């Protein structure tokens, strides 16, 4: 009973926080966009700009509502937003939500694969590194992690692209499916083949953070009092690592992994750009360049939701797994 009430309270609090966050993000990004030097009409017309008369431009502007004062436009937009209408993307000539939906599915597999790979490998490397602190293994893993942590994603992407796609020719140079085919025509194998290198790039970088974090936590656990007591009982290093340290390290690692979803999103933008991978990240950049304000704002709001969901999951998992919180039923 108490458990149930606290759960409801937890959800209510989260929803309230989400709504406040959404309102703030919507307002803030709207203000930012309205200060943008990119004129949406110019960006829409592109090179056709020379063939269009000022009168025609005004007609376009009027149709988009650009003749109204900014504050009024904001309230129009916001009230439509609340009703679930995100508007029409100017560059795709399609409802914003349907663009985001399609692009997100493409991105999702990329991000999911990278996220899972980096989570698993990062954790294993971190535990090994921390258990055998100062060994050659530890030093090599740390060197790798520090190097990757300070390397930009796009640079790694370009290097891998040069080596694997251009020189070795193992992987395709661009896109999410073979050029010339529509997404529906591509086979699963072809899609996976196109996915491998971008996902690898993203996870190569993502591994670094989780490895370093896990390594720190493992060292802490291996030098803890309970590890000393286990050693006093005759437990060997590996036994201490698996029976004692692991469960103490896993919890913060899982939390970090879910909280890192936000960064994953940022990384995906760069990786997709390098690999011309038509996911949400690449769409964001296009929308920015070509002044597609409805799409850009839609993506901002969608990614806020996405990151928020990641953080909430981190919270929930912590509460569900940690006996210290679980037994007392203390949902924050």
């Amino acid at each position, binding site marked *: 009973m108490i458990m149930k009430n606290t759960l409801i309270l937890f959800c209510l609090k989260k929803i309230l926080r989400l709504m406040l966050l959404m309102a703030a993000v919507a307002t803030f990004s709207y203000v930012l966009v309205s200060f943008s030097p990119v004129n949406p009409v110019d960006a829409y017309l592109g090179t056709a700009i020379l063939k269009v008369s000022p009168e025609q431009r005004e007609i376009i502007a009027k149709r988009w509502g650009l003749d109204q004062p900014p504050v009024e436009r904001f309230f129009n937009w916001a009230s439509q937003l609340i009703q679930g209408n995100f508007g029409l993307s100017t560059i795709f000539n399609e409802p914003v939500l349907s663009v985001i939906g399609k692009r997100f599915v493409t991105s999702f597999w990329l991000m999911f694969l990278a996220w899972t790979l980096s989570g698993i490998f990062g954790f294993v490397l971190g535990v090994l590194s921390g258990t055998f602190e100062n060994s050659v293994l530890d030093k090599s893993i740390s060197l790798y992690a520090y190097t990757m942590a300070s390397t930009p994603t796009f640079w790694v992407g370009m290097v891998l692209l040069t080596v694997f796609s251009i020189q070795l020719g193992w992987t395709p140079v661009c896109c999410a499916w073979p050029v010339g085919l529509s997404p529906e025509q591509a086979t699963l194998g072809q899609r996976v083949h196109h996915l491998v290198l971008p996902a690898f790039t993203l996870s190569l970088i993502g591994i670094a953070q989780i490895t370093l974090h896990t390594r720190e936590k493992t060292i802490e656990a291996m*030098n*803890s*009092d*309970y590890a*000393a*007591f*286990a*050693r*006093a*009982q*005759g*437990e060997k290093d590996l036994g201490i690592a698996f*029976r*004692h340290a692991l*469960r*103490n390290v896993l*919890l913060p690692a899982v939390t970090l992994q879910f909280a890192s979803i936000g960064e994953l999103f940022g990384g995906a933008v760069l990786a997709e750009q390098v690999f011309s991978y038509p996911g949400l990240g690449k769409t964001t950049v296009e929308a920015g360049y070509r002044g597609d304000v409805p799409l850009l704002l839609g993506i901002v709001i969608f990614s806020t939701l996405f990151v928020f969901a990641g953080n909430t999951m981190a919270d929930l998992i912590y509460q569900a797994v*940690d*006996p*210290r919180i679980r*037994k007392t039923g203390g949902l924050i």
Partner: protein
Amino acid sequence: MLDIKSLSIGFSSYSFGLKKHTVLAIRSLDLSVSKKEVLAVVGQSGAGKSLLAHALLGILPRNASLSGDLTFKGKKLTPKDMALLRGREIALIPQSMTYLNPLLKVGVQIARAAELSGVSPKASWKATLEALRRYRLEEKIARRFPFQLSGGMARRILTATATIGKADLILADEPTNGLDQATAGETLGHLRGLADAGKAVLLITHDIEAALSIADRVTVFCGGVTVEEARASDFNGSGKLRHPYSRALWDALPGRGFVKSLPARSPISSSGGCPFIFFCEKSTPLCEGSLPGIKNLNQGCVRCHHA
């Protein structure tokens, strides 16, 4: 069973990240305990009692260095031996609850200690429940996490964990801290029983009076140095104690009448002299200059220039 001669432990650290220097935490500890005996180790906070226990098991932090002669069952005790003996022949009752894994049910932790000490995995759960019963803990406690225990329960869990095997030497680091008098008496009685059954017990404690109730002999530590070894019966207020520090400890006990100020904590020796020098009425330049050697006196030992 166990014989320690001039044990010293230093901790090295780096100042400004470059210069390495060593701080001595234990300067010269000497003690011995044989089977069927309970040796109480008393001394103020920071005297080096816990470090001694950890040193015997080879579980000191990595930056610690150790020197001195350790003999266990007539054989020199090397770090390699320690790794083989701990849990099986030497067991530790640690000082605080932080020595329990916070995310592991206590029953599992006790059972694992049993397995490591040589109990078969099949029999370990039964042994765990027996150990809990011995310390008057209910069976359901086995399924609790350490944070769900009271301080006294945790203390008894630690004792149960360490005494579940067949270790011949038991290092008990303040096993009765935070227990009510009746429960403390039971724990001490159990330790006495283990000694009577042929084991050796090193009882580290602040509580001199409780220790005297079961100890055969008492070793007094001050600032990382053994200053006296006495029979338990010498602590009776009749002036049999050999070292001024032991007398001060005795006088400082509640109900003794004397309100003599003891140093707030065991002073850590920086010079080479006697650790008690700043508080001793008899101190002379000789005490300042050199650490006195150990002298046998009245069937005990003392480390004092004036004894």
